[in-house]
């Protein structure tokens, strides 16, 4: 039971150092509070529980023109088109006293509101349909839609809107151009009977059947295994990735404590007592794991109680997955302590790990060789585990593989640390 005394000793030391204790408790807050304040409000930014379609403000100066109506319909197939805004939102954006908003229903006011929203990263982009848009198209003249984007915004969100808008614009543009040219019909007249040609032309120029749907439509599905309490909002989708990244930063603590002990020669003194090396390192590992668990608990507790973060329904699985993750991170810290890498330097490769593991943006955006490398990062598996529990609403069985992989990583690094650790060397 030697490792328990090492464990207790380490904890006692932390408890005595008030500055360190405060730091350890503040660290999780430093992480969860900014993200919660930025994304947790549930309004304005991104997807909310009630609405999981991406919003696209469309300011239509063209009125009831055929082309603008069909453009808006087409955009509405995959986006939530917003054409008016609540007075409450206008007030919050500080536009209630704006001269353009003297008439709150005016398009100028809507455009101002939408642009203010986009500028504040409330929406990734918006579309302005100019006056005379439909007339220009009917007359075969060129016209321009304006897509305003958020200059400081998340490019992946913009790309989604851009794809839909450009696709819809191209569709209208092409169908109109084809209908107008009639060239195909004229070329046909060289070898078609007059009556047939006329009939065809008539058909081509006739308005589409009222109940005719677009030839190709898009629908969105959800995997059948998904058992959510509510549709995950942006906050819910962001927290798992940053949690994983954060937990790996914790190891800086362990690393520094090892350096300090080596420096003061306490290791050497401990080794003169009948304690085995694995027990000594195991005790230190256990203390660091305990502290790490408390920190993650603070983080999740804060998110859960104050910002309505959903933690899934299987808390045992969440506990075990977190334990495996913290153990893995701590073992890496121990191994880096063994190879005398300073914690500041260690942070950099961990950021790479987080990047490859999909903590910042989905791995699907990476080329396949990077996705393969990502499989060798503990971050990847931890992230899938958290997503399974906190967002997909799965239980313990579904995260057992992830827990196993994380513990395997932990075992490898711990073994390396025990092998390589030089207790006697002074820093």
């Amino acid at each position, binding site marked *: 039971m030697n490792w328990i005394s090492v464990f207790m000793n380490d904890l006692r030391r932390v408890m005595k150092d008030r500055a360190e204790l405060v730091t350890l408790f503040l660290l999780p807050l430093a992480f969860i509070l900014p993200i919660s304040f930025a994304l947790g409000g549930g309004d304005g930014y991104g997807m909310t529980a009630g609405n*999981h379609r991406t919003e696209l403000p469309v300011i239509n100066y063209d009125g009831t023109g055929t082309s603008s109506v069909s453009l808006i319909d087409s955009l509405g197939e995959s986006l939530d088109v917003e054409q008016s805004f609540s007075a409450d939102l206008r007030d919050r954006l500080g536009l209630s006293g704006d001269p353009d908003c003297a008439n709150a229903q005016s398009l100028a006011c809507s455009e101002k509101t939408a642009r203010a929203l986009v500028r504040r990263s409330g929406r990734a982009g918006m579309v302005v349909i100019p006056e005379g848009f439909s007339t220009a198209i009917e007359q075969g003249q060129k016209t321009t839609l304006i897509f305003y984007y958020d200059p400081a915004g998340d490019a992946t969100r913009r790309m989604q809107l851009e794809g839909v808008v450009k*696709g819809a614009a191209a569709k209208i543009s092409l169908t109109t151009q084809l209908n107008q040219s009639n060239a195909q019909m004229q070329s046909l007249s060289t070898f078609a009977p007059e009556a047939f040609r006329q009939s065809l032309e008539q058909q081509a120029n006739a308005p589409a059947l009222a*109940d005719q749907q677009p030839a190709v439509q898009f629908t969105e599905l959800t995997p059948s295994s998904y058992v959510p309490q509510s549709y995950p909002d942006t906050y819910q989708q962001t927290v798992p990735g940053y949690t994983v990244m954060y937990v790996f930063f914790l190891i800086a603590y362990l690393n520094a404590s090892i350096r300090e002990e080596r420096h003061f020669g306490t290791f050497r003194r401990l080794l003169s007592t009948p304690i085995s090396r694995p027990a000594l390192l195991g005790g230190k590992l256990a203390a660091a794991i305990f502290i790490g668990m408390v920190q993650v608990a603070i983080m999740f507790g804060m998110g859960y109680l104050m910002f309505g973060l959903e933690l899934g329904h299987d808390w045992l699985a969440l506990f075990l997955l977190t334990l495996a993750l913290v153990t893995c991170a701590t073992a890496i810290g121990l191994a880096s302590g063994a190879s005398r890498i300073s914690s500041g330097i260690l942070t*950099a*490769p961990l950021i790479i790990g987080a990047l490859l593991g999909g903590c910042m943006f*989905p791995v699907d955006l990476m080329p396949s060789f990077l996705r393969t490398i990502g499989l060798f990062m503990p971050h990847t598996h931890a992230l899938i585990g958290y997503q399974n529990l906190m967002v997909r609403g799965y239980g313990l069985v579904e995260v057992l593989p992830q827990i196993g992989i994380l513990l395997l990583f932990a075992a490898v690094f711990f073994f390396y640390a025990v092998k390589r650790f030089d207790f006697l060397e002074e820093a």
Partner: protein
Amino acid sequence: MIAQIWSVTRKEFRILAQQPSLFAVLLLVPFLFMWIMGSVFGGGSPTVAVFLVNEDDGAGSQQVVAALNNAGTLEVTALSSRAEADKKVGKGERMAAIIIPADFSAAIQTKEGGKIEVMIDPAQSEKAKIVLGLTQQAITRVIVDAEVSRGIKTAINQSASTLSSGGGFDPQIQKFLETAINSIVSVQVDAALADPLINVEMKSAAEQDASNRPPNLMEYLTPGYSLMFVFFLAETLAGTLLAERTTGTLRRLMAAPVPRAAILLGKIIPYFLLTAAQLLILLGVAHFIFGLSLGRSVPAMLLTVSACGAVLSGFGIMIAALVRSEGQISGLTTLIILLMAVVSGAMFPSIQIPLVQLATPHYWAMMAFQNLIVRGQGLEGVALPVGVLLAMAAILFGIGLSRFKFE
């Protein structure tokens, strides 16, 4: 004074040179980081990996599959069944799957139309919806073709029944007519695609934004993460100072006729240079290998990078002055560095805290980098942020100098 500062600096460089691992990490890690960012965002927009299930064997679905495979924006992996896609997307193996249902090719000829289904992982739906947009863009041509060919088919059917009083055409003739008209129309579609009536103009929502070019994530994350990386150097700086204090070498230096400010300055100069060098290497790699624009003003860039080095050095001295143990350095510095990165918005554009961010050097440094890289401004664009950064550096160094205990 300068000679004294230099001798401290030289000694510090010698100590640093004994840590080859530090340099390896300083150079290698940023390179890896840039390499990853470059291969994802370097081309402007990332290629998104997605599953594809084609349950239909008609010509229409073949066209969709071909268009998706040819789209540079999608990396398509074909799966054999809907059930497989359901299982894999459900496990988060990919964030989305495109499914072409069994009756698709027939359905697009009917007035109800056909449906392409996009299965989206709810856990990543915000990013996954990009697939919806990219698919629509990729198959625009197919959509138009389907619309046109449905129109022609309907028109011929109608004409046939009118002209031959309900009898319709010989199926072979009808087929010939459809193919003939379709191929003529196809030429029209190509012409129209090359010169569309509706042009979508991309504009920044900000009132004053000279660039008018949508930002890509690489332009944002490169300076953001570079800043975060280099700030961890402050930890090394504070650690060295602390170690010298505990081992008593600082006390011995004090016995020599060297002013305290000179000792501290001499200590921080290597870190100032290292910071600037690391930032330049990071941005340089991003520029020369991955084509990231660095703006048009070299002096403005050098000024910004130097200001970052100054702030970092001041920050390191302040940390060394305020803490007592190495454990604290690591914990406290990591805390402050992460907090600054998250609050300022340097980590991700959508995560930032207004007003509080003004207190972080990252915010101002990001403003300078964005003005240079994204907005293409020159010295005028960095004057304010660099001024703020230098003021911050002076304040931090002042606090450090007044609070630092040499013994």
